[in-house]
């Protein structure tokens, strides 16, 4: 930290103390990870977005609190052309940019900021594309924005037109994601003139409900309420993130009153938290799925009847009870039940080892040996893959299938599990980015995703299924899309490229006096609506 930065922080601290009313309401969140930076575009971690995109910034469209529905954000409204190729956004007027010691805005938010925010990610030649050497825009790329956005046109100061190369129904959901946060073009030019471009990432300026105050690396992030916020003003005055990586320690801090809310409690602690008179727990089905993906290109797993039989041999409820300690539900579809287009009419394969054994024999499968891959890390959709694999091993042994459990280091696991000719079925899962069904089925099960670099670890390419997805992706009407996705789920269940294992439950423990916290199906932690009662 330079001397200048220290002085600036001291000055802002002083300014804060003097500006604070006598009884400022401070809310402390025991966050689990350090942010990678404060510009949301180059990063991918949820913990980074909770510290940057959600408190500090806004997007053209936003996810409505507690849902995956898209609502107006910095854009007041939008029109979509009949062919679905042009999105024209009417921008909100009178939205103030935040200020800090280095920057006092001279103008409100306008179309230039929108163009700047997208073009810096889109074009390698843009002067801000590499404002920090080696920076990359992974979400912009993985959401296929480079091939989707043909151009972004400024119609006037408060109108922006996005021209697409193809109709894309999830487009609005995509630009509601953190990577599409709108940053200030004016702030960028001030930083450029000062020769401190990297401060866009260190000392963020946004339009959101909270202003960034200071970050002490790996320890504390401080924010203060944005007095000029265009939306409903936050109820708390100060927001503090106390970075606490260990779940057991987070819980102790919460109990001791050192923070008011924590993410990701250990599943084993939930029961005790519920009994604590000073705490309460919000819970909600997570937007995720855990699965076992067969290699559908290899015998005998290329036979859907064999896959179905194996699915029938699996006692999934036992997995939910043992591995999730009840904090989850058995999955029957590849998308979670909280997502629109979830086909509840589908009936899951019934656990029946006797019928499973008979079905395997009918297909001529005898003395089968297979590998089951257990991932080495914990994920919300899979807290203990090794234990899950052991339960599957026991279940399969009952129908005469011998299972060898294998595991690799995480990076290697991700890589090797996507290698063509992979031996064995892989335990993995997915957490949704934007609440669109295509973000599950398209990413994980389409023919395109079965190529190298994709995420279709069953290597399953069913043309009928893929065509339904493509059609749905190009259809704007939600009712029509819903029908197409429902049909796709019927094909999925019939063909069984995966054993769908679970949808886990998310828990958010907090102090009894916290009100107004809304759980996000996308797993975001936002604090603009929280309050503390006495």
């Amino acid at each position, binding site marked *: 930290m330079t001397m200048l930065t220290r002085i600036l922080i001291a000055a802002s*601290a002083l300014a804060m*103390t003097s500006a604070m009313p006598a009884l400022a309401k*401070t809310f402390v969140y025991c966050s689990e990870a350090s942010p990678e930076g404060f510009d949301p575009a180059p990063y991918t971690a949820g913990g980074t977005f909770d510290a940057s995109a959600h408190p500090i910034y806004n997007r053209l469209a936003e996810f409505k609190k507690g849902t995956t529905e898209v609502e107006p954000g910095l854009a007041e409204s939008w029109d979509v052309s009949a062919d679905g190729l042009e999105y024209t956004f009417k921008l909100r007027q009178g939205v103030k940019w935040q200020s800090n010691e280095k920057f006092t805005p001279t103008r409100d938010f306008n179309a230039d900021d929108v163009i700047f925010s997208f073009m810096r990610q889109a074009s390698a030649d843009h002067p801000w594309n590499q404002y920090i050497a080696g920076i990359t825009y992974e979400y912009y790329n993985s959401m296929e924005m480079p091939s989707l956005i043909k151009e972004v046109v400024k119609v006037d100061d408060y109108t922006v037109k996005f021209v697409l190369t193809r109709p894309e129904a999830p487009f609005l959901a995509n630009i509601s994601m953190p990577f599409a946060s709108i940053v200030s073009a004016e702030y960028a030019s001030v930083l450029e003139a000062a020769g401190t471009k990297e401060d866009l990432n260190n000392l963020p300026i946004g339009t959101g409900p909270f202003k960034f105050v200071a970050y002490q690396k790996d320890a504390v992030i401080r924010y203060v309420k944005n007095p000029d916020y265009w939306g409903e003003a936050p109820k708390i005055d100060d927001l503090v993130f106390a970075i606490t990586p260990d779940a057991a*320690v987070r819980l102790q801090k919460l109990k001791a009153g050192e923070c008011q809310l924590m993410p990701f409690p250990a599943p084993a602690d939930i029961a005790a938290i519920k009994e604590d008179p000073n705490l309460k727990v919000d819970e909600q089905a997570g937007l995720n799925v855990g699965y076992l993906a067969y290699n559908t290109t290899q015998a005998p797993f290329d036979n859907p009847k064999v896959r179905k039989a194996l699915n029938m041999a699996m006692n999934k409820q036992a997995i939910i009870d043992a591995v999730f300690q009840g904090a989850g539900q058995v999955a029957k579809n590849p998308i979670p039940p909280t997502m629109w287009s979830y086909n509840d009419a589908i009936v899951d394969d019934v656990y029946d080892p006797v019928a499973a054994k008979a079905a395997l024999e009918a297909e001529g499968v005898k003395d089968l040996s297979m590998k089951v891959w257990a991932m080495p890390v914990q994920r919300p959709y899979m807290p203990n893959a090794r234990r899950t694999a052991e339960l599957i091993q026991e279940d399969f042994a009952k129908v005469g299938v011998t299972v060898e459990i294998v595991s690799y*280091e995480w990076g290697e696991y991700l890589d090797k599990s996507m290698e063509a000719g992979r031996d064995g079925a892989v335990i993995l899962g997915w957490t949704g980015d934007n609440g669109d069904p295509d973000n599950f089925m398209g*990413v994980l099960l389409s023919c395109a995703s079965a190529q190298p670099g994709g995420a279709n670890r069953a290597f399953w390419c069913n043309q009928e299924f893929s065509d339904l997805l493509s059609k749905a992706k190009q259809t704007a009407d939600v009712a029509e899309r819903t029908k197409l996705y429902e049909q796709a789920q019927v094909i999925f269940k019939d063909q069984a490229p995966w054993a769908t294992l679970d949808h886990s439950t998310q828990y958010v423990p907090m102090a009894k006096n916290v009100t107004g916290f809304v759980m996000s199906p996308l797993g975001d932690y936002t604090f603009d609506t929280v309050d503390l009662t006495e």
Partner: protein
Amino acid sequence: MIRFILGKLLYLVPTFVGITIIAFGFVRILPGDPVLLMAGERGISPERHAALSAQLGFDQPIWLQYLQFLGRLFHGDLGNSLVTKKPVMAEFLTLFPATVELGLVAIIIATAIGVPVGVLAAIKRGSWFDQVSMTAALVGFSMPIFWWGLLLIIFFSGILGWTPVSGRISLIYFFPDVTGFMLIDSIISGQKGAFTSALSHLILPSVVLATIPLAVIARQTRSAMLEVMGEDYVRTARAKGMPPSRVVGVHALRNAMIPVITTIGLQIGVLMAGAILTETIFSWPGIGKWMIDSISRRDYPVVQSGLLLIAGLVMLVNLLVDLTYGLINPRIRHK
């Protein structure tokens, strides 16, 4: 004495070169690469993977990458983190004071308790004090730090409410880093109660970090003292009718201190290892936690340069220990 120092310094050169190879090679031997970890479950196309690898310089032959690393090192450039994109040196300097502060307090606790306990156990050899303290030392030495830290938090912070759970200072205090040492900065800030708060936050983590070194130092002091107490000159001193306190304090302890100081010096390395776990559990923003995060993300520049900095530091401490021998024992520096 100058020749003695120069000779010691010369030894450092090959050691340092060796460390650069180990630091550079270590993180690359680990399976999995940073680009794949960044992409996660989503996967990454071979073209994009190649483009990113090229951008980060990982497509070069490994020996060339090593030479480039050395070249930058000689220009004082330790590279930038792949994750935060910030200079490794800047991150190190931000976090390092927290680790030093914790480590210093821990080593002070370990020495201040370990040496007297060891001396007393040696003098009263076979007594109940000897038995109890040496058993406790063995238990302390075998203590899993993570479990021990959590146990202390639950008892002292959770049940008794005497100490804060984690962090370096209460969040109500907010002042800029001047030295990076919270105990000093809290005094400089002039804010009432800040120093007490910083001190109370140091108690549990430093006790946890001190546990293993304390056990080692106590046992080492005891055995060194026992050896020296059996020497002829101690017997002679006693025979002369010298008071026991002078026999122990001057004749025995001074000679017993040489292996003890070696042990204390070696504990710096142990402290660094302990800091990784202690910092993680107490949310202590130091370099131990930084290294763990970077290793799990395969942040090559941080891991290799961070290891180098830590190893350099341990080397420096060992050099100082060597020089201290010279001060304590003239025979060593004249050898």
